């Protein structure tokens, strides 16, 4: 039905059976100059980045920044105007079937067939990914059990709750044991139990070698889960780094919160080496300086000189929220 050829081994069902495959792929996703316009609006503007194999990559950005458009281009749902996206060694435009065979997709809104049962949806996925029937049945049973849906497998999806639908979608995306998983806000609007179940499974999958491309608004989720995050603003990639490095990079100054067992003169604190300013907040002091290590050393030496005991000492690093807000300032909502 078209001219693609299976030149790679990326579409094998069980990567564990083909240990050599992993060494062939330096980057799981390589994006170069990807651009998409809708009329006069540039939704995605020449973005380039790479996602390494085995990585959990967080893709963040405010509403309308171009996250979903990028994800849809990467998953071959819509074509890019210019630029390339190579997924698992296959250009998504030139070899879409071979690329799609290697990844699974969990969209933000459930798109299972509501007139089919959970089991029928999974069997359909098995056939669309070319899985032998026995393997599809085995994988479907395992996944439904893991995700707590086995008892409801013969019920129409119409009767599922939002959390159940989302878990089913995850099972559908994982049925062919993909090496790469795209997730768009997978826990958005879910209860704590479903959220925890999904996040635990993502961690477990990643430990097993699955690369994860996660689009999320949840900074805490990205902070806890992702090895690296990319932040997109108005269609352009404005930051790409590990969450901790991003947090550190946005602020030249570091803050430390300290409290002593007795009153300390504020002007003595400001005279300490490395301290830029000292602000009183309740029974604590917030000390600002350029280097966190020398600040802590100065405070410890100072407390010894003053004969004071340090009761609490906290480093106040900027959160990923801070980094996100700083990097996306001025972006249209």
């Amino acid at each position, binding site marked *: 039905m078209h001219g693609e050829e*299976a030149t790679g081994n990326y579409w094998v069902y069980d990567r564990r059976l083909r240990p050599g495959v992993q060494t062939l792929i330096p980057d799981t996703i390589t994006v170069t100059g990807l651009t998409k316009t809708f009329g006069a609006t540039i939704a995605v503007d020449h973005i380039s980045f790479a996602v390494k194999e085995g990585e959990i990559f967080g893709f963040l950005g405010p509403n309308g920044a171009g996250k979903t458009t990028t994800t849809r281009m990467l998953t*071959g749902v819509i074509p890019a105007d210019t630029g390339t996206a190579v997924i698992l060694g296959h250009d998504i435009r030139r070899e*879409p*079937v071979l690329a799609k065979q290697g990844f699974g997709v969990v969209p933000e809104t459930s*798109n299972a067939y509501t007139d089919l049962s959970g089991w029928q949806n999974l069997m359909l996925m098995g056939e*669309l*990914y070319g899985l032998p029937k026995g393997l599809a049945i085995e994988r479907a049973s395992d996944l439904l059990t893991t995700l707590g849906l086995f008892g409801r497998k013969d019920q129409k999806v119409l009767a599922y709750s939002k959390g159940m639908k989302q878990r089913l979608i995850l099972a559908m995306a994982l049925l062919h044991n993909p090496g790469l998983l795209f997730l768009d806000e997978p826990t958005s609007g879910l209860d704590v139990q479903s959220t925890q179940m999904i996040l635990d499974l993502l961690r477990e999958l990643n430990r097993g070698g699955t690369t994860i491309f996660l689009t999320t608004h949840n900074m805490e989720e990205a902070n806890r889960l992702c090895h690296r995050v990319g932040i997109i603003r108005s269609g352009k990639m404005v930051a790409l780094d590990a969450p901790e490095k991003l947090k550190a990079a946005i602020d030249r100054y570091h803050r430390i919160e300290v409290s002593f067992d007795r009153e300390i003169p504020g002007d003595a604190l400001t005279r300490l080496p490395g301290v830029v300013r000292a602000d009183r907040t309740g029974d604590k002091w917030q000390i600002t300086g350029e280097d966190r290590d020398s600040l802590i050393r100065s405070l410890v030496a100072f407390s010894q000189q003053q004969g004071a005991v340090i009761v609490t000492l906290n480093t106040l690093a900027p959160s990923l929220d801070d980094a996100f807000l700083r990097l996306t300032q001025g972006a249209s909502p």
Partner: protein
Amino acid sequence: MNPAGFREQARRAWAIAKKDIRIYYVKGPVLIFGIFMPVFLFLAFLMGSRQLPLAFLVSGLVGMALFFTATAVSPAIFPWEGQAKTLERLASCPITIEAIVFGDMIASTLFGIGITLITVIIGLALGLTLLHGIMVLAAILLAAFCFSAIGMLLAVPPTNTPSNIMMLSSLIKFPLVFISGIFIPLEQMPPWGLALAAFSPLTYFTDLVRYAFTDGNYFPVIVDISALIIFTAVFTAVTMYLHKKTMPRRL
């Protein structure tokens, strides 16, 4: 296994067809509509045209049944699935747009054949004799595929509002029935009517069915079959090409 190879894509198209049959075709209202619509049209015409022989009218009934059933549901599948976002799910699966369209056509073909065979049985029950049984089966198979391609062609405009497509579908389907020699024998048509009829694949199918029941036909059998083959090939190729073009605008 090469996932992009023809054989594998054909298997996946069959999965699409099974899904369509389960979700869209094996439904009471759809089945009832599929049978009642052509039967009522036939009865209405039977009342008003008593001078026409039964074999002519039954041939028309078979033609209408196949045409209406094979094009009844398929035009609305893409808009429905676009609306429910399940089309996006299919677009991210390793299946080509051609295979999705082909799968939809298979489902529509099977539905058309199933309902049409009932009308053939009605004809036999009314006392008609099937003179060329193999011919009518071959014609039904070929025409069902051709009409399914027409059904999918009607779904090309990239809208996710099924009612828009159904309106367009009716605007095209009903006039086609009237120019295809179903209600007026081709022999009695004016030259301009015959010229129009030549552009309708339904004309050639009805002519073949008439031949199967009466041994009489307007065009030679080889012309009817060749025309149906050409229409099927052209409509299938065009619908696949156009869906590939318009699919991104639908998603």
